[in-house]
């Protein structure tokens, strides 16, 4: 039976500023203890599958959080590496019988890392080092980074740019990077967008489009396609002004204060708009929007407003599946497969709706992709910060994608879409296969 091991004595020799500053109280010890380390998450975790190492598994990361929370381990560069090596795909949450909210645990851990660094090391030396070591020596990564940064800047994301570890390098290096970036969207076109779109037929719902920041710059057409599909299905569409970035990238990077500010702006903007639903087409944003209430634990008033907001958030796939079937006039005559967005499947539990929508397009042969709900390695900015791991995961993914012999690999999130485009190139499938957002594909068949 159980024995009790006293671990107090294996505290490392570390001077803990974290306790003094109350950082460690941010850890939710009840949830950490709810992980009974059974290991059911291990086979679901892409980084564990790649490495076979416990410290790259959800169980291992939670154990390390526990070690830090109990002051047996320091908050140091190694802990930072451990916490930021996670994709944040949350496949482990689906696998976890104990219902451990891993996504919020890892966000807290990253927040602790970032806050600790701000307090102890105002120059942010080691985040910078990480970025410098992982990014600057690699031209291809720089180009990718540049694209993301350009988008970030163009979409008014300066606060993110200024605050996240990745973007801290921005002011000095921006000019250099911009040279490596292609022109990807026209801000003028965005400005000329109508703010309202009429429903076809009887109005079913009033929908406020959550356009996203990077999404709206790089995938402006996808947002337009989404609006078109929803209006065909009977929705009156509003492009709500004053909305901001969802804050997911901030939260995932440990920049909680920034994330909370953005959440407040969005809640206010959509309260004014007074719509039935708040619809988005990016799994990553959607999961964050649906979890705003978790960001306001200490603020009852905002918590209530967040809950009202959250109750209206829908992924476009979800809402389209509830509305009367779309009429398609152009058969696609193609074989297609679907790569789940992690934050749509694991974060929001939306799995069947996109598949049903795809099957409803005439002339489509739908083939299920093996391990479709396993992360492609994109994971926000992970493919920039952990390039090698990301590419290993992508190459494994592309083996399965290749086996489907599909003409289209369909996704539901901009990050996944970019990653799949890169995957097609890496797998030598250029010209044979196209990566496409589900809303664009549905719209093409109208």
């Amino acid at each position: 039976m159980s024995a009790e091991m006293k671990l107090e004595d294996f505290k490392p020799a570390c001077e803990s500023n974290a306790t003094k500053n109350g950082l460690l109280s941010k850890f939710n010890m009840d949830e950490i203890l709810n992980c009974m380390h059974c290991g059911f998450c291990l086979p679901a975790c892409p980084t564990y599958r790649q490495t076979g190492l416990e410290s790259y598994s959800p169980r291992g990361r939670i154990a390390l959080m526990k070690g830090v929370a109990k002051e047996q381990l320091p908050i140091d560069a190694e802990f930072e590496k451990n916490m930021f090596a996670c994709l944040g795909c949350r496949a482990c949450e689906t696998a976890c019988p104990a219902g451990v909210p891993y996504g919020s645990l890892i966000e807290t851990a990253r927040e602790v890392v970032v806050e600790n660094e701000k307090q102890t090391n105002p120059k942010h030396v080691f985040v910078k080092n990480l970025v410098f070591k992982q990014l600057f020596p690699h031209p291809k990564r720089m180009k990718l980074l540049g694209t993301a940064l350009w988008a970030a800047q163009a979409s008014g994301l300066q606060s993110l740019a200024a605050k996240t570890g990745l973007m801290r390098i921005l002011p000095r290096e921006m000019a250099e990077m911009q040279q490596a970036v292609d022109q990807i969207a026209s801000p003028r076109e965005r400005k000329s967008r109508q703010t309202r779109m009429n429903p076809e037929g009887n109005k079913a719902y009033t929908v406020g489009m959550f356009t996203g920041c990077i999404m709206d710059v790089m995938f402006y057409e996808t947002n337009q396609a989404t609006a078109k599909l929803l209006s065909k299905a009977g929705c009156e569409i509003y492009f709500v002004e004053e909305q901001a970035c969802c804050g997911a990238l901030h939260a995932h990077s440990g920049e909680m204060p920034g994330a909370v500010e953005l959440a407040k702006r969005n809640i206010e903007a959509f309260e004014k708009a007074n719509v039935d639903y708040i619809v988005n087409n990016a799994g990553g944003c959607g999961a964050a929007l649906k979890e705003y209430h978790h960001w306001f634990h200490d603020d009852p008033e905002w918590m209530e407003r967040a809950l009202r907001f959250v109750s209206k958030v829908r992924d476009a796939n979800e809402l389209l599946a509830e509305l009367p079937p779309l009429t398609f006039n152009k058969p696609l005559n193609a074989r297609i497969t679907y790569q789940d967005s992690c934050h749509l499947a694991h974060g929001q539990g939306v799995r069947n709706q996109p598949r049903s929508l795809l099957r409803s397009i005439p002339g489509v042969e739908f083939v299920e992709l093996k391990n479709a709900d396993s992360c492609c390695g994109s994971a926000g900015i992970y493919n920039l910060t952990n390039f090698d791991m990301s590419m290993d995961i992508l190459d494994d993914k592309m083996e399965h994608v290749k086996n489907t012999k599909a003409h289209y690999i369909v996704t539901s999130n901009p990050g996944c879409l970019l990653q799949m485009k890169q995957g097609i190139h890496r797998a030598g499938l250029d010209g044979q296969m196209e990566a496409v957002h589900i809303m664009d594909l549905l719209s093409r068949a109208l």
Partner: protein
Amino acid sequence: MYILENIQSEVKKETLITPELKQQFISIVGEKWYLDSPNELYAYSYDATPIFQSMPDAVIIPQTTQEVAEILKLANEHLIPIVPRGSGTNLAASTIPVHGGIVLNMNRFNQIYEIDQQNLTATIGPGVVTADLHGAVEAVGLFYPPDPGSMRISTVGGNMAQCAGGMRGLKYGVTKDYIMGLEYVLPTGEIMRCGGKNVKDVAGYDMTRLLVGSEGTLAVVTEITLKLVPLPETKRTLVAYYANLVDAAKTVEKIIANKIVPATMEFLDQGTMKVVDDFAKLNLPLDMKSMLLIEQDGPEDVVVRDIEKIAEIAKQEGAVEVKVADTLEEGAKLLAARRAALSALSRLRPTTILEDATVPRSRLAEIVQEVERIAEKYQVDICTFGHAGDGNLHPTCMTDERNQEEIHRVEQAFAEIFEAALRLGGTITGEHGVGAAKMNYLHLKVGEGGIELMKRIKEAFDPNNIMNPGKMFPSSTRRRLVVKK
């Protein structure tokens, strides 16, 4: 009751692995596969056993038998403990480095070398994940029956070391019934073989059986030859719900008495049903006090006949509702949900402590009642589920490791459950092993003489006591372990 104290601080003082030694280990496996940073060590300081934790001095991840031999030889010369480990899903603290030393992670031995369809055997590395083995042999119409709850995570090597059971134990037996041969390495670095592909082999002591279930205390296994059987033609799943616990237990006894041996007969009480339903969304009738989950496999006509008969018996014995799963998928979903029962129970309280006291199946109703009585007596929260068909129950206590007083009551309750199981002709552990968690109860089952003999066997294999010390029986040769009775 016992308390293990101050282990890590003493390990630290002794610094088991000197820089020179570290270099020698690295020259065997390469830098990438030698881990000793604080966080890496911390990540191998636990397994799936609650409360137990202890830091190793290094984690080494070898890939070849030769590497294992060189590591063991070096460790043996320098008296460094070796703790072999697969995926770390152990429930008896068998893979926790309670004396520090080296965690020898065997998960790179993950190759299936051969599936021999003439001899019906598979030869594999010990790091193959059990469910991956299932997939590979079932693809050619063969079957490896042992299916511990952790089969999607655990390795066959780990299953072998603990002699893992599972849900098909009733009809098909457990891991030991399928291990035919082993390659293993002694602490001296000698590479040995025992058993093989022969169905009949009485040449000498049966070393294979001795090593199976030895919990890494004798040698490191580097290759396993397994027995396979033909894959059953079909299977069907049935659930029966009861308004009390005893009727379910009686149904189990009656089915066996009717000369039907189902592949699986699982028991879940109300508390377990609730959490499993919460996780797997099965729409179970949660007003019921217990349920049986029964599966039969074999030729179509036999399966249909047996399932009909089982349904009839269940109703006779007082089942409120009996339902046959419509599809194979539905059956598989029910069984998968049952496998998650232990972890799902940890939704209720921070700490989940599970035991696997086992009785002859004819005493099932009695042990179920005893567990209920004992939980009441010590005012602890115990849910019970388990392999009703083979008398292997999993009374699971939901508690909080931060509450010392409650943990003490939990320990008392489990001690009394062990006593009850032994009184009914049972054992202290059916399938999880002794490890560090139950070593102080072992004498109750095997006697002091039994323990002495086991120690002499261990000494023959491992005279320096480097192989997983502090497991199975309290070790007298290592003083760093402070044991308080």
